[in-house]
């Protein structure tokens, strides 16, 4: 999967939470990569494992969660790697960076993160400017004066008017959009190669979101920073990403260039997701929701995890664990998909499943007795 300008390479990453009710397989063997200067989307519904995946990359998963397998390399450094010891157990390997190296060399300096809620990411009792300054002092070893000058420059860079004066403001004195700009300024201050943006525009109004996305696009061009853009919003994905990974229940089920994902959709889940969104540019008579809800990651369905809600599900989907493979034709851009339809496991000859999703299920809850009134 990786080539010359691959910045981040994630192979078979697994993160589990050990709770009283059992083991939650929040991220269950995902693989993706990010090239230099590229914006890669990570999209899925809540509970799909998007945020756990990004905090795993940064090695910030908290107890009872733990990264239990996989390899993550970033610019030649091994962020995560496991090897089997003599007893056959998986143990972090020698090549993996120590916690101190991770903290000093990678987080903030090389990989920065922007969170959804800027109010929670900023300390309410310190001035905005001094928070950025401190961040620069720690990560770049600047003295106070240099760090302050850079902090003001960064505030100006992200479009905050009167940066010298706003340097002395507290977070609550900024609007939501302005606070998100502050976080972007902070993330960019150490000129990282990669920024992980975890739903950074979800809490913002559309007009402000448009401003922020435009800013990100400009800054990416200027600094050549790569982004992992985590969101549930397909419209944001369509607008800003170069490539997209769609997640469902701890797995990446489809990966493609953004245009291919929307116009040559391969996985039934991606298809259903796109079909369920109301459009701003046309009136839709009826929405086609995905039936049911996403199952718990504590006890995922066997076979293909989407088979309980999939309109194309057949008997074989309950049994066969789909492989994650490239299904593009020679000469096309790679297009990975995780679905038995594209495998040789007898999908064509298998019987359709009898579920509500496939339309074979008779008991529709909404069909209740309406007493002989002709309502047409």
């Amino acid at each position, binding site marked *: 999967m990786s080539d010359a300008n691959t910045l981040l390479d994630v192979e078979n990453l697994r993160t589990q939470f050990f709770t009283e009710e059992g083991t939650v397989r929040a991220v269950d063997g995902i693989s993706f990569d990010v090239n230099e200067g590229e914006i890669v989307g990570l999209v899925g519904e*809540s509970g799909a494992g998007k945020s756990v995946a990004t905090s795993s990359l940064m090695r910030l998963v908290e107890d009872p969660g733990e990264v239990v397998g996989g390899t993550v390399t970033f610019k030649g450094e091994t962020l995560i790697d496991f090897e089997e010891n003599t007893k056959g157990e998986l143990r972090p390997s020698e090549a993996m960076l120590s916690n101190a190296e991770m903290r000093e060399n990678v987080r903030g300096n090389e990989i920065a993160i922007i969170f959804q809620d800027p109010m929670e990411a900023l300390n309410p009792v310190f001035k905005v400017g001094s928070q950025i300054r401190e961040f620069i002092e720690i990560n770049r070893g600047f003295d106070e004066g240099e760090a302050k000058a850079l902090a003001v420059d960064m505030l100006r860079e992200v479009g905050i008017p009167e940066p010298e004066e706003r340097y002395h403001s507290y977070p609550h004195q900024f609007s939501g959009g302005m606070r998100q700009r502050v976080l972007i300024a902070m993330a960019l201050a150490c000129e990282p190669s990669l920024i992980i943006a975890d739903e950074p525009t979800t809490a913002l109004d559309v007009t402000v979101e*448009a401003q922020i996305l435009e800013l990100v696009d400009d800054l990416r061009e200027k600094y050549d920073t790569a982004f992992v853009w985590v969101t549930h919003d397909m419209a944001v*994905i369509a607008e800003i990403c170069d490539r997209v990974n769609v997640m469902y229940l701890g797995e990446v089920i489809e990966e493609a260039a953004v245009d291919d994902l929307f116009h040559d959709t391969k996985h039934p889940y991606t298809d*259903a*997701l796109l079909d*369920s969104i109301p459009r701003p540019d046309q009136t839709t008579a009826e929405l086609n929701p*995905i039936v049911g809800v996403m199952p718990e990651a504590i006890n995922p369905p066997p076979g293909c995890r989407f088979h309980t809600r999939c309109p194309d599900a057949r008997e074989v989907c309950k049994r066969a664990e789909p492989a994650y493979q490239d299904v593009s034709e020679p000469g096309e851009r790679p297009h990975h998909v995780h679905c038995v339809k594209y495998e040789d496991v007898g999908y064509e000859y298998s019987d359709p499943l009898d579920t509500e999703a496939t339309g074979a299920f008779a008991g529709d809850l*909404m069909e209740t007795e309406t007493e002989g009134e002709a309502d047409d």
Partner: protein
Amino acid sequence: MTEAVDDVDFGETLVELNGVTKHFSQGSGFLESLFSKPPVRANDDVTLDVKKGETLGLVGESGCGKSTLARTILQLTEATDGDIYFKGRNLAELSGEELRRQREDMQMIFQDPQSSLDPRMKVGPIVEEPMEAHGLYGGEREERARELLEKVGLDPQHYNRYPHQFSGGQRQRINLARALSVNPDFVVCDEPVSALDVSIQAQVLNTMNELQDEFGLTYLFIAHDLSVIRHISDRVAVMYLGHVVEVADKEELFENPSHPYTESLLKAIPTPDPRAAGREVVLEGDVPSPIEPPSGCRFRTRCPKLIAPDEYDMDAETWSHVRHFVRQVDRRTFELEGETEASLRQRFFPDRQPDGEVGRLVDEALSKLANEDPPDWEGAGGLLVESFAEQSICAQERPVYEVASEHTDGEHLAACHLHRGSEDLVAADTTDVDVGVDDD
């Protein structure tokens, strides 16, 4: 206004707002009465009607007063001014007990399905509670609750479960069942699907549509998501900073937006399609404070189509440069380091210098910026705003106009002075012209 009636025919006005205003004072008690601060003007003079059987979408950015309006309509907060009529009855004039009984017909669904359900109550009793409060369906409440759970798409067997055992979408369905338990006519839905995932959102929206058909419900549907509004509404009202700026049938509003704010909002929505034309960022700056909202049209401080003041003689191009210059100075969005009067002039007026009175004012402002040390931002901004922005008709009169509908035959109101020359509703009101109601 209209006479009080017990029932309203479909398509007739069910809820009528007449100049509804809601201001919040910023303090309370004795000190407040001595040193009063200006109030927060959440809603100002909102006139709107909701017709029986329709879904009226109410859309606007956060902080524009949508939720306050919803709460005021239901008399959960008292209006500062104006009247709200429900089925022809003025709600403010009802006594406490009468209002309580009237609430049977008006229910609400909240945004957060988690916090609007009591975690210690089982689902069945939650749905039965409004019936109990109104003394309805005695003896058959449990049966009705089970029936409603089934109607909103839940398993009636879940009667004895607690809210935390349900997902977000299912909890919103419990809210729906509770709202419908007293058989209301009017349901106010405050961002009911914005906390839900898209696939779940579609399920709940479809269920709401089905229930509306079955029970003949009227919805006031508040949302900030224009895609959702376009899907569910029959008519749409757009709010900005406490004012309703445009009201029209859905198709008309989306295809022929006639207020610059609506246009900007529509241009800002992302489309889930990478091949669609990218959205445009047309709005600069932030929403002004509702404590001191701009005079006249409240959108004028950000409006890309602010009208040139009549007293200066300018062509459109000059005005667009001047307008840009005024706003950049007022917001201090550029740096003065290394700039001279000439370089600033070149930057803001590259093709042609404005002449006459306009030229003189621009020169004065440029000189305050470039030739004074420290630069007199305040003086320059104040001069420009006072001479140009405040002189525009947009700053002096609040606009209300009816425009011709292009896509439907419903009424289309747009509060923008660009429609001067269309029928002026303020004028029409004073001369008491009887506008014929649709005949069918």
